[in-house]
């Protein structure tokens, strides 16, 4: 049963390569986008930390900025 699934009557190499390539592409793209997202978010938090209280409260009044700061959960 396992041999049949792995070898697939000689087509196993082609089939498994196709699926492996697809999953590799998925993982690579996900990791790249995730790194970009984390980098930008960290940059944002660092920049926000340097603002004085007046500028920080002004920035916080903007909807998206409030969302970025409140949404600390990772994807």
């Amino acid at each position: 049963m396992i041999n049949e699934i792995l070898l697939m009557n000689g087509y196993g190499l082609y089939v498994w390569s196709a699926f492996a390539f697809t999953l590799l592409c998925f993982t690579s793209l996900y990791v790249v986008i995730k790194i970009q997202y984390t980098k930008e978010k960290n940059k944002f938090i660092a920049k926000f930390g340097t603002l004085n209280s007046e500028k920080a409260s002004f920035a916080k009044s903007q909807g998206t900025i409030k969302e970025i700061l409140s949404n600390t959960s990772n994807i």
Partner: protein
Amino acid sequence: MYKFFEPNKIFSITSRAPKYVLILFVIVLTIGLIESLILSPEDYKQGHSVRIMYVHVPAAWTTLGIFSTITLLSIFGYIFKLKNFFLISKSLAPSGFIFNLIALVTGSLWGKPTWGTWWAWDARITSMLILALFYLIYLLAWRIYENKEQVYKITSIITIFGIINVPIIKYSVDWWNTLHQPASINILSKSSIHSSMLFPLIIMTAAFALFSLLIFLMKYNTELIKIKNKGLDRL
């Protein structure tokens, strides 16, 4: 109505959605992989190599769908001056390009056991390669041009030229003699594919669509934070 497309409104949804989409994607992909690699039957002519169809076809469908969406958004964005439409288009492009690459590579892996060759310059394969080049030019344009107005204009022109290629890809198997078989699945008429193969194909297409949604949401959030970073610099 346009206010609905404002980044502030959208971000409240897009910042929360990815984790749920990721969970759903993993579940659907697991079912799809079990169906396509184990449960679905082998083809009477192609044997087990037909299983490559379950990654090749959804990848091709998704990449075509994404490019068409990018073109529509770019055109509407340019006409109605909706900058957010360009941001959505830009966020869709990476997954579109990756699906195009998957379609080409898995097609090549399918071609060797069925046609006896890794590559042939037939109409369908060549037009898919051209689409990949359009994706590449589109993504490069966003990296090269700094001026926003310029990049909106250039990316719109790229997509308008690129969309001409989409019906060519679709009908290439009818217009020319190619190694590809004609379409087995028709929305308007009866499909020639058996339900035991159609079901895994639909599941895998759903998984691919969910993955492109996931990447889109993450990329879109990244782009919005980038904009806000620039905003903080100006404070």
